[in-house]
């Protein structure tokens, strides 16, 4: 064995590094085919062999959706970090730092809020970053989501919410659960301002994220193949002691069961969202007449005196 290793290894290594460095070819995690990186980029990170939608970062998502890939990221409100001083096999505070250096997003958490134009109309996008601790939703994410809703209301723009999340951030305990009602309130504020909430469900959208704002959009779009559901597949299989059908909790499965409006391939998302916004955004003149009192109601200081309107 050892003589073979010694002789063969340098040769194979040399061959590999010359012809196929990791970053030029990407293996599709669905069909296993190798895809040339330029082709993958041009195809919005969709496999050109099987149509599988690879997971993409929050930043890539924003670039794909906003006109000309132009947008402004808004600074996120500061929140308390590690409120429970949580520690499992690692300290939560260390996990946070690790995630921040991994995603290279500085101090931000598993969400980015940005505004720009889609189809020439202003829009606010709140997009989750799955690479940041599985896109899990804690206080920072909830707070940023609320600020996205407020920004949409102020700009009289639609809110496009794009979850990619395993669910609640366990390390923040009950406070992560409380982000469910908090994000629901955020969505309600936008709706009350007469503005559309469009949710784009991407892979994966599960747990507490699916059971809150993600299911409350005026329009629900899902990306092909995305896993969307409340309980995890393994938990269900353990509970009911039977195997689940192929494609269970996939975007297409949800469409079939009436849970989403449409399944739209990544390349057509910008156009689809633009068309939806054009239908749903009211003409400017009307918006100005009704927007003032409602905008004030949505601000935190006036909330106790909010009128009972619908």
């Amino acid at each position: 064995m050892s003589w073979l290793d010694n002789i063969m290894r340098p040769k194979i290594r040399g061959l590999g590094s010359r012809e196929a460095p990791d970053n030029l070819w990407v293996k599709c995690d669905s069909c296993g085919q190798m895809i040339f990186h330029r082709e993958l980029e041009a195809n919005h990170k969709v496999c050109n062999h099987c149509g599988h939608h690879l997971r993409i970062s929050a930043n890539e998502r924003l670039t794909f959706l906003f006109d000309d890939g132009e947008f402004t990221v808004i600074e996120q409100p500061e929140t308390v970090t590690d409120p429970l001083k949580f520690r499992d096999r690692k300290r939560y505070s260390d996990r946070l730092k690790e995630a921040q250096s991994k995603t290279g997003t500085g101090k931000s958490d598993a969400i980015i809020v940005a505004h720009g134009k889609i189809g020439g109309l202003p829009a606010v996008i709140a997009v989750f970053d799955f690479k940041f601790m599985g896109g899990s939703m804690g206080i920072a994410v909830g707070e940023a989501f609320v600020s996205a809703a407020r920004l949409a209301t102020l700009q009289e723009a639609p809110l496009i919410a794009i979850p990619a999340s395993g669910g609640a951030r366990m390390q923040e305990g009950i406070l992560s659960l409380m982000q469910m009602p908090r994000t629901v309130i955020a969505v309600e504020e936008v709706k009350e301002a007469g503005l559309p909430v469009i949710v784009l469900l991407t892979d994966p959208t599960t747990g507490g994220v699916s059971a809150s704002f993600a299911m409350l959009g005026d329009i629900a779009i899902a990306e092909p193949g995305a896993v969307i559901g409340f309980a995890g597949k393994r938990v269900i299989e353990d509970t009911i002691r039977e195997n689940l059908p192929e494609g269970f909790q996939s975007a297409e499965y949800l469409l079939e069961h009436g849970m989403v409006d449409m399944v739209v391939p990544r390349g057509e998302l910008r156009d689809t969202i633009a068309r939806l916004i054009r239908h749903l955004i009211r003409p400017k003149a009307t918006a100005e007449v009704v927007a003032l009192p409602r905008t004030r109601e949505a601000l935190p200081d006036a909330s106790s005196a909010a009128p009972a309107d619908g």
Partner: protein
Amino acid sequence: MLRMPTFLDFEKPIAELEGKIEELRHLSDGGGLNISEEVTRMQEKVERMLRTTYSKLSPWQKVLVARHPDRPHALDYIEALFDDFIHLSGDRNYGEDDAIVGGLARYRGASVVVIGTEKGHDTESRLKHNFGMARPEGYRKAQRLMRLAERFGLPIVTLVDTSGAYPGKGAEERGQAEAIARSIEVCLDVRVPTVAVVIGEGGSGGAMALAATNTVLMLEHAVYSVISPEGCASILWRTSDEAETAADALKLTAQNLEELGVIDSIVPEPLGGAHRNRDEIFEALDNALDPALQELVGLDGGVLRAKRREKFLEMGKKGLS
């Protein structure tokens, strides 16, 4: 109905002592011996032991107490605290889910809508109520009842006791996530006073669906958490054996949650937990529920909704000290 009491592992010394007291009583019945002094002494010891054990329950022990099979469940509280309960069924869409019970009732003379997750107390009723794990129909029924309450200006009381929403194939197909999300939305939206009481286990989204209320009360030894300690342990520690450690880390006790501002007040339980003295816990909750409702009744519907929103938006601004 005679039921053998269930003892938890950490209650063993107490159980043994109580067993001895029973034995002594039997002896004295037969032999005419005067051992009342001894029995009184032993009973005092039991009380002392209960006091020390229950004054410093670990989070994991609280999980066990919260799940105690003899602990009163939603229907027990409904029967004890409310009059003229009229059970209402069905979500008008698909079916009836007995994991969530609810209807019209009278509380201290005033009509209310009461909704609760019910675990059941024996094999038959546990199966009927699906161990308190609701399906979408349960949450949709809850939404319907909350809207009914709003239409007639009735306060809403919810009793939360669930390990979580049911993880099933059909439940997913019929939109478990949407049903919970919508239930939270309706809970937050209704223009009537709302009070939730976590009476046992407050399990994740399944509990949250009924607890986005103006006021949240929690029994002293109840727990309320984003995930079960077992589930958390198997994900973060990669083994469910670490459930006890996870229970510590999750900060799921009423005492922790009060400090975090997630619940408004704690309802004291009788010595040795709610399962030891039902009448006492019924009275304690009654004494807490009335002022909680009184504080809200009479407020304008819009104000109630705005206050509720404000409360949840303010949540999570501070951590544990």
